[in-house]
Structure formats: C-alpha cells, structure tokens
C-alpha cells in the first residue's frame, strides 16, 4: 500500500478530505495534475443555502466546521466574515425572504429581516426602491486556492510531511498528507494508474476531481455549468456585505439555458468580485463578452455606481452539477473502495468541510454528525 487513502484532486474538496483524513491519523496521498478547476475560478463564498432541506443541512453543518478550521488558517486564506444580504426587490421577494428567514432560524442559523431603510443604511451603494433584505451574518468569503494549499500543508499531530514521490517506508502511527503532482490515467479497484505508467494503491480512493472525474468514471451524471466572473479595481468602502439577489436561487437551480443573477462580493483587497452567470451549452472556457455584459448590467441594476468603476479582470469557470443539485458524497455503488466527493455545483467551497466529514466518517466507519443519505451516489448511479 502506498497510502491508507488516496485523494484524486487537490481542489478545495480534495484538500478538505485529505485534511480531515489526516487529522484522523491516516496517511493520505493526494494526486493532482496541476491546472486547477472550479476551486481556482470560483467566488469562494461561504454561504448557507436552503433551497431544500438536504442543502440546508449540509451547508449549515459545513459552515460550522469552516469556522473551526478558519480559526487556525493564516491570513493568506483571505477569510472575511462579511455576512450575506439576500436582497429583495419587491414585496413578493420580501415574502420569500420571510419564509427563508423562518427556515434558517429553525435550523439554528441566526438571520435578520431588514427593511428598505435599514438596507440603505447598511449598503448605501444599493439603488433606491428595493424592498429590503435578509441578513445572514454568519456567512463569509474565503480565498479557496490558498485555503486548499493550507489544508494540504497540514500534517497530523506527529510525523513529517514530505512532497511527491513513491515512499515505500510509511511510518504507521501518525496522519500525514503527501501531494504528488501527476495525472491519473485510470482507476482500478484499490489503485490508481498514473500517466507515467506507475501505480499507487490504497484501500480507499476518494475521487474529488470535479468535472474532470468523468475521464476516470464515465458513468458520473455530472453536467458542466459555465460561469463568468469579473473583478474590479479597488473601491474599499463601496460594499460591505456579500450581496445576492433573492432571485439567485431561481437562476442557480435551473437545468438549462443561460441566466444571470446579481451577486457581488467585497474582497479583503477592497476589490469587488462580480457575478454571476450560468450556461449549460458549452465547455469552451473563453469569455463571452455578451454574457459578461448581461451580468454586469444586472449588477449595475442593483448597484448603480458600478457603471463608473473599472473592471480589471474577468474569467470563467465550470461548476459540476448533479441531476438533483446535491453533491455526490459517499461510496461508489459499483466500485469497492472508491469514494465520490464531487458534483458540488456552486457550493463546493461552502460544503467542502461537510463533505470531508462525511467521507472521513465513511472511510473510518465512524459515526457522522451529519446525516448523509441524501448525498449518497447510489441515488443517481446504478447499483450492482
């Protein structure tokens, strides 16, 4: 055995799984070929989403774990405890916000309904004429690429970490994480075959490679959802909370077509990260200027002052969407020893911690604080 667990994919989900397994004393080998996927492209929001109970349970449990981990992370991880304001444009949306308020409160997530005046005081840059907002103060933002790197650099309580290479002399007493930069060519039971012809074996293999997992597991029912993002120059005092239109939920769960929704995030640098868009019909990562334009117009509709500000960069990314909008977390029904941790769509950073917890509980056959049946891959993969 080359490790007690192999994690394929060093994005935020893979890194979180590796970290959690290492904390439980396992020797973990993480294999990643480099280019980076959704983790490097996404907004890094830490946000409770409640479109259905399973999503609410996973995101709220995950955020609680995040708060624990973030307390140990360094400043390069860019954590900002800015909270989210779900903006309502009219009475109908305000009603929906009130229902959301009830659901979140029932789940133990503190949140506050605020009216138009209070909203204007909290965020003077928002346009007049909005109805109000639901404030979720416990939400935040993290810079996922550095958070993943931090997680991968944390070894267990004892024992050194070493980088790369095939180490036949694993000391079996302490958790550790080794990161191997290599491409996995094929997956077999209990081992991965790398592009250079070598293999690594482990009793447990966690597939956390997002959309690229399809190359190893063609049966995965994942669909790519393209998103555009744009980041502004520095305007430090313009926006203080993560701002999302309530209609975001409608856009986020659509299964086809192209849509944009207002979502602006103040970064610790003072820049504004502007989203969001969703497209199903493409895997081309080029910026589509008309979509960028639609997204920016939507944002300016809520923040009129945005029009005069400068955009410095834009980029795209692909979310991995499952058929029912919930991630696949748990054992592959057909392939023994293979654990799936993918299909997180737009909530990968938020739910990476909960995912890691479920995966580690499964691998270590220990009790899980979180009920995981809703995310089991068997629900959308044929069983043996």
């Amino acid at each position, binding site marked *: 055995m080359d490790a007690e667990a192999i994690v394929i994919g060093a994005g935020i989900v893979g890194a979180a799984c590796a970290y959690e397994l290492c904390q439980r004393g396992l020797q973990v080998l993480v294999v990643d070929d480099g280019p980076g996927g959704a983790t490097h492209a996404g907004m890094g929001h830490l946000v409770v989403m409640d479109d259905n109970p399973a999503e609410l349970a996973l995101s709220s449990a995950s955020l609680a774990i995040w708060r624990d981990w973030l307390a140990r992370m360094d400043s390069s991880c860019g954590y900002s405890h800015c909270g989210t304001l779900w903006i309502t444009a009219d009475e109908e949306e305000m009603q929906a916000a009130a229902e959301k308020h009830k659901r979140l409160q029932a789940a133990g997530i503190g949140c506050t309904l605020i009216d138009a005046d209070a909203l204007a005081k909290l965020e003077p840059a928002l346009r007049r004429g909005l109805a109000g907002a639901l404030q979720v103060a416990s939400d935040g933002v993290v810079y996922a690429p550095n958070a993943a790197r931090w997680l991968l650099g944390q070894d267990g309580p004892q024992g050194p970490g070493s980088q790369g290479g095939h180490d036949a002399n694993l000391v079996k007493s302490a958790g550790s994480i080794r990161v191997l930069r290599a491409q996995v060519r094929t997956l077999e039971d209990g081992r991965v075959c790398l592009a250079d012809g070598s293999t690594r074996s482990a009793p447990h293999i966690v597939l956390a490679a997002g959309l690229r997992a399809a190359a190893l597991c063609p049966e995965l029912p994942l669909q790519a959802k393209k998103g555009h993002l744009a980041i502004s120059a520095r305007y430090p005092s*313009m926006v203080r909370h993560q701002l999302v239109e309530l209609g975001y939920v409608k856009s986020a769960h659509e299964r086809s077509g192209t849509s944009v929704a207002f979502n602006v995030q103040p970064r610790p640098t003072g820049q504004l990260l502007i989203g969001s868009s969703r497209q199903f019909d493409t895997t081309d990562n080029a910026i589509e200027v008309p979509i960028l*334009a639609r997204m920016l117009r939507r944002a300016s509709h809520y923040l009129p002052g945005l029009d005069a500000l400068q955009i410095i960069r*834009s*980029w795209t990314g692909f979310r991995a969407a499952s058929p029912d909008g919930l991630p696949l977390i748990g054992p592959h029904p057909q392939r023994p020893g293979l654990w799936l941790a993918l299909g997180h769509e737009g909530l990968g950073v938020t739910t990476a911690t909960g995912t890691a917890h479920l995966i580690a509980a499964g691998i270590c056959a220990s009790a899980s604080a979180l009920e995981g049946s809703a995310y089991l891959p068997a629900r959308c993969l044929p069983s043996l």
Partner: protein
Amino acid sequence: MNATRPAPNTFANQNACAILIVGAGPAGLSAALAAAPSGRSIVVLDDNPAPGGQVWRHGAGAAPPGPLQQLQEALARYPHVRMRCGTRVVAAHSSHALLLESADSAWVQGFEQLILCTGARELLLPFPGWTLHGVTGAGGLQALIKSGLPVRGQRIVIAGSGPLLLAAAASAAQAGAQVLRVAEQSSWGQVAAFGAGLLRWPGKLMQAATLLPPAYRCDSYVLAAQGEASLQSVQLRQGAHTVQLDCERLAAGFGLVPSVELGRLLGCATRRSAQGGLALQVDAEQTTSVPHIFAAGECTGAGGAELSMAEGHIAGLAAIGQAATAAHMHARRRWQDFASRVDTHFALRPELSSLAQADTLLCRCEDVAYGSVAACKNWNDAKLHQRCGMGACQGRICGAAAQILFGWDAPSPRPPLSPARVSTLSLAGDDNGALQ
C-alpha cells in the same frame, strides 16, 4: 469619489469602417497612407493623446519629427481616413468588431479588415529599489520628457540595453538634465560590432554618432537604486568595479517586448521573438494567421521606425488587395537585417536575471516580492497563490520580467484588455445595449 455619478456618454451605435488600424505609430500611419488611395473608409486608433506612437512622440512645444509630419500631411488629404486618439481596445465584440473606450465615451467599432500596429513596450526588470520614486523606464523617461516632464538641472543615470538608451539620453540632455552615465549592459565588443555594422545603414550610423554621449559605458548595469522616500543614488556594475552615483533620476529599460495581447485575443498565432517572448506571426504580406487581420510594426518583432514603416506600408496595401512592390520588400528586408543586428548585439546578459533579491518587488501592482514568485512552479501558480499579475497592468510588466527571469510564458489574454469601465463592458450585449 461620488458613487452615484452617471457614467460618461456610452452608446451602443455600431460605427463601421472598411479598414480599422489599431495604433497610430510609424506602422499604423504608413498602413493608413498605403490603403487610403483605395477610397475605402479607414479608422486609425491610438491610446495616446496624439499620433506618432512612441518613437515619434513630440511635446506640444516641439514640431513633429519629419517623417511624422510628412505622413500626417499626406493623410490629411484623405477625408475618409479618420483618427481616433485617446482610444483603447477593451474587447473583441465579434470577429469583425472591437469594443472601444475613451475617456468620455465607449462604442463598438465594426470593420472588414483589421491591421494591428500595437507596437512594443519597454522591458522593465526588477532590481533592488526599482520601485523607488525617481526610477522610470528609459523610453519611459523620454516619453515623459516629451510630454513636459521637467528635468532641468537633474542628475540622471540611464541604464539597461539597446539603442533606446541613447535616444533617452539625448532627450534628457536636450531638456537640460545632467546625464551622468549611460550604462549599457552589452559588452564593448558587441556594441563596437554593432556600430561597425551600421555602415550598411548610414542614417543609423549618423544617428548613433550624434547621440553617443561621453558618459556612455558598456559592460555596465544597475545593481541597485538607493534612497528612502525617493531615489538618491544608483549603484552600478562597471566592468569589474562597482560605482555609486548620486542622482535624482534613474531611467532603466532593457529592450522592447512586442505588445501582442490584442492579436492573441483575436486568435492570431505568435512566434518566439529573439528575446524569448512572443511576437505576432505574419507572412510576406503581413497577414496574420487570421485571414482578415494584418499586423505590422513592433508587435511583429521590434525593429525600429524604418522597419515599422516598411511593414505598415505592405500591410496597408495587402488590406486593399494590392501586392507590395519589390522595392517595398527590399526596404523591409533591409530594415529586418538592422533589427537582427540589434537583437544580436544587445542580447541580455544572464546577470540581469539575478539582480532582484528576495524582498525586491516583482509585481508592482500588487506589491508581490520576487522571493514569493520565484518559489512558484509557473505563472498560474504565482498568480493564484501570490497575486502576481492580478493587478491593473494585467501582468504586462511582471509577466514580461517573469519571461526573462523564469522562462514563463504569459497566458492567453482575456477581456478586458486593459482596465475598463463597467459601463463600457455593459455595452457589449447581444441586444446591443438594451437595459435588462
């Protein structure tokens, strides 16, 4: 800043022309003049306040250089050639339209043919103190002086590489500065060989002879710029010695890097330049790999104003479907040979890649230290984990340096090609400006 100010006048009307030329330097103006007799509508864009590019930049008090004046007078006879200065290309709107922005406007410009004359920019390399107030590029100092920068009585050290150092020194001296030293990193042997070879280009030889200042030294390069709040002195390597010179300004530039971002964004193929970076690839008709896009001038490889003019002329003819004459091709060949000689004799010495210390900044926009970047595996790694290249210059300055220091290639450019207003980018809808 007042966050509720209305954005400058932006309208989604499609301006259209037959031939759009990006860049009003020697190449762009020559291309415009070559294409003008066809009678087809031509628009020439430039992001500077006036035409001329870098080499023909002239201050308000000074007359334009001869070749520029000739071109402008010739072009003035063609009313269907329109100049739009102070205008940047922000993005491609389609295969035949660009999204443009100026200080108080933004619009979509359609075209049938496109001629890219986007020029080149100075290579700036990091060394201790290079971010001190008082340190500029060499071409940078020349450009600033021509637009009115006061340097009278100031002690200036000019350092780096290439004939541009002489031009900068001449501008500084003419403006009343005291040029203490021109430190050329190339060796005496190389520079002498270059000078000897100039017999083939007597005009250049004359130019060099008149520009060569007494303070010119070869085998000399900057080690550090020193000072507290601003520059106070410069430390130079001088052969086997180290020299310290008290001064008010240091103008340091290490050659030229073609500006290929717009071409790459439009899908034009590139080739490796002599310095290791990228240049737009063109054929004998100055056509890029994209059939309706031509390129001429320094963006296809730096080589001086004469080469740019020859290439621009050929590109302009090609855009209107006319073949260049043998004389045109000969002129281009002649000046390409000159460009090759510059490449050969002013190649950068390896020591220049080791000037920066761990705490020397590499990315000026985000204040990222050289040490942080050097520990990264590649450009993407440096960008994502250290913020190198995430700032306003979009990785142009630090990226060109990283190419020399680490051999990293710049990634494919994405829109916006320079920081652009949200109102500008919002124009580019499929519904062409209708509000959501």
